[in-house]
């Protein structure tokens, strides 16, 4: 509109300037007439517009509403690209890496006194290394289900499905059903992804009793009570694909768990959650290798029942509930495990075996562990944290050793060394935004018997793409 008026004006000037040359031209009157008509046309159009503007202003109340509706519809429509791609799920990518130094070889890492959990529990390798990159894809499937996939791209160029589950949206009455592979709801830290942990690695109790974390294949049913106090009860049936179970190759579930959490607020500044969980698995031939007294590898395997209890609590404080400037988080969990069954000791696979036989006898253990950690954000972007870890060897009854007919305690250096692992860790991290974090972590790790491993880790965590959720 404005443009065409400018054009008209320019046209008028141009023709006006050309006029004297054709002063006597009989066409002149014609052009003048046309110009006059043009001007009149524009004037009447401008008047019409002004009139319409006034009318609109007069009826602003109603018009505003409908206009707003139309505008917002247009605005909403423009938010996502049109077409098939508009349904693309939310995608985010987590990239991580470490620069590490440790006084002991990370490859020799073990938690003396505790059966190996098979997870990736060793400290990060020395020097610069890439850690797992996580690709997270999630979206609503339809009005009834939601889908979520987390794939880890390992630095060894492999891929690993960490989570791939569906979750119901419409069961109602507080029920949610989840199925597929997912981080179990037991304990507190188990459900939190590694990149969101407050320390670079898992607490010793998680490393020793759950291989870092439990992400079995199975189903989970959860119920939230309609009460003011947060009450959540859940149960899971699993394939027992991972420690402490073993894959059973049968239809029935190999592991099941029960958990309950309660939580709430104390005033505006404090929020808390506490829980109790129970995990039951029945491993068969859960095998690992351990050198005997002659330092040659022997296969040991456990079959029986494994029962794990976890008590967890977390408390968060922020002045007035505003965590942007300063906040504090206190978190602790206590693990207690009972295993009863039989232990097999087999050195027949060796070229020069000490016994050349397979021994099998009753085995039971009562072991426990806990950690307590506090993280304080003392100013925007900066947090400092301290964690104390402890495992208690407890009591282990090994029928093979007791019988005195074959291997002695010295042939079971891992299981029969009464060692109470300990670790102290401190960290300082800096998060320019909620999408980036750099962390320095120092640890004095006494997981191995008689050895102190001093570790220094510098870590980066970056997240790209869709905005992640702030899990409590």
């Amino acid at each position: 509109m404005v443009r065409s008026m400018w054009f008209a004006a320019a046209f008028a000037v141009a023709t006006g300037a050309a006029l004297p040359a054709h002063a006597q031209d009989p066409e002149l009157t014609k052009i003048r007439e046309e110009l006059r008509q043009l001007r009149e046309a524009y004037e009447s159009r401008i008047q019409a517009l002004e009139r319409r503007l006034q009318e609109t202003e007069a009826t602003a109340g109603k018009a505003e509403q409908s206009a707003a509706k139309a505008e917002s519809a247009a605005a909403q429509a423009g938010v996502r690209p049109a077409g098939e791609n508009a349904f693309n799920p939310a995608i985010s990518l987590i990239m991580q890496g470490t620069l590490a130094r440790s006084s002991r070889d990370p490859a020799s890492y073990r938690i003396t006194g505790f059966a190996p959990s098979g997870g990736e529990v060793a400290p990060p390798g020395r020097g610069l290394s890439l850690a797992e990159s996580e690709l997270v894809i999630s979206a609503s499937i339809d009005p009834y289900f939601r889908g979520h996939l987390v794939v880890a791209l390992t630095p060894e160029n492999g891929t690993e499905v960490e989570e791939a589950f569906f979750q119901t949206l419409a069961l109602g009455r507080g029920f949610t059903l989840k199925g597929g592979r997912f981080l179990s709801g037991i304990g507190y830290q188990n459900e939190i992804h590694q990149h969101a942990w407050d320390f670079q690695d898992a607490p010793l109790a998680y490393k020793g009793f759950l291989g870092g974390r439990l992400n079995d294949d199975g189903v989970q049913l959860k119920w939230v009570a309609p009460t003011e106090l947060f009450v959540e009860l859940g149960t899971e049936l699993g394939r027992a694909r991972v420690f402490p179970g073993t894959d059973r190759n049968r239809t029935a579930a190999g592991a099941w768990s029960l958990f309950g959490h309660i939580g709430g607020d104390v005033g505006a500044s404090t929020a808390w959650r506490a829980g109790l969980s129970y995990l039951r698995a029945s491993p068969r031939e859960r095998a690992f290798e351990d050198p005997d007294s002659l330092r040659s590898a022997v296969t040991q395997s456990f079959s029986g029942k494994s029962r794990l209890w976890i008590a967890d609590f977390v408390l968060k404080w922020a002045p007035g509930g505003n965590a942007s400037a300063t906040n504090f988080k206190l978190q602790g969990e206590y693990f207690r495990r009972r295993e009863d069954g039989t232990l097999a000791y087999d050195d027949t696979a060796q070229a020069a075996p000490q016994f050349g036989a397979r021994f099998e006898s009753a085995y039971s253990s009562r072991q426990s562990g806990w950690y307590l950690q506090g993280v304080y954000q003392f100013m925007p972007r900066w947090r400092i944290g301290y964690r104390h870890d402890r495992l208690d060897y407890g009591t282990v009854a090994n029928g093979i050793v007791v019988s005195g007919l074959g291997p002695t305690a010295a042939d079971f250096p891992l299981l029969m060394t009464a060692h109470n692992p300990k670790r102290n860790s401190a960290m300082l991290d800096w998060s320019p935004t909620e999408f980036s974090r750099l962390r320095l972590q120092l640890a004095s790790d006494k997981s191995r018997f008689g050895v102190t491993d001093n570790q220094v880790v510098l870590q980066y965590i970056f997240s790209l793409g869709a905005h992640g959720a702030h899990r409590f």
Partner: protein
Amino acid sequence: MKTLLAVVLAAFATPALAALNIFACTPEWGSLARELGGDKANVYTATTALQDAHRVEARPSLIAAARRADLVVCNGAELEIGWLPLVLSQSGNAKIQTGQPGYFEAASAVALIERPARVDRALGDVHVAGNPHLHLDPRNVARVAQALGERMASIDRAEAGHYAGRTKAFLDRWREATARWEKEAAPLKGLPLVVYHRDMSYLINWTGMREVGSLEPKPGLPATPGHLAELVERMKRDPAKIVVYSRYSSPRAAEFLAERTGIPSVMLPFTIGGSDRAKDLFGLFDDTIARLLATVK
């Protein structure tokens, strides 16, 4: 075990005293729901004026409250993206999931401004749909009230007349008040100011003030000394008369700038509970305008 069962049964059996349980994400929409619902609505407000709505976590208490809600009234436009999706999916409440009648977004009734031409996190914490802090323009509040009143009536049909009546009464009072505020705020027209976060844009738009700059170098990033120095430089060319900040943000940067440039810094309540006078939506606007006017006199 028996007691537990009794508690569970009691929880199921207790009839809700109020007809409509409303979970409001922010204080302003909680206050509006209270205005429109009266004694027929039981409103839980998830956040306070002291909290930055971007940074809230999916606390257990929020999940428990969402579990019992018939209607979720949120701001939308990604303001609650960090915690609301998790609260909804953890609540096990089918009524309030996205797309259900029990899920209401204020932003759906309003045309958002400042929609970014480019969406890139290098530009800070930008919101794809536009600036979500839409409630400080009273005309937007009227639009949201109209839509929310209709939604409440459609969910609780038995009391539809009650909500319609209260909505009309509220809108009548609100229009009157808006006319009064517009008259009062006339001296603010053209007032150049510096903001903390871009959470005042709708207020600035409505009153005709002029934003000279913001203390945040980019949305969501805290003020840095370098950026403040640059701002002081810029203000020599284009001076601002006041610097404003919201109740939930730290006053430090604003006070620093005020000190360096000799202009007053003004705390604005931003939402209900942000100041003693901001007890409801009317008080919020009364107080906001009064605080701004006090600086131009």
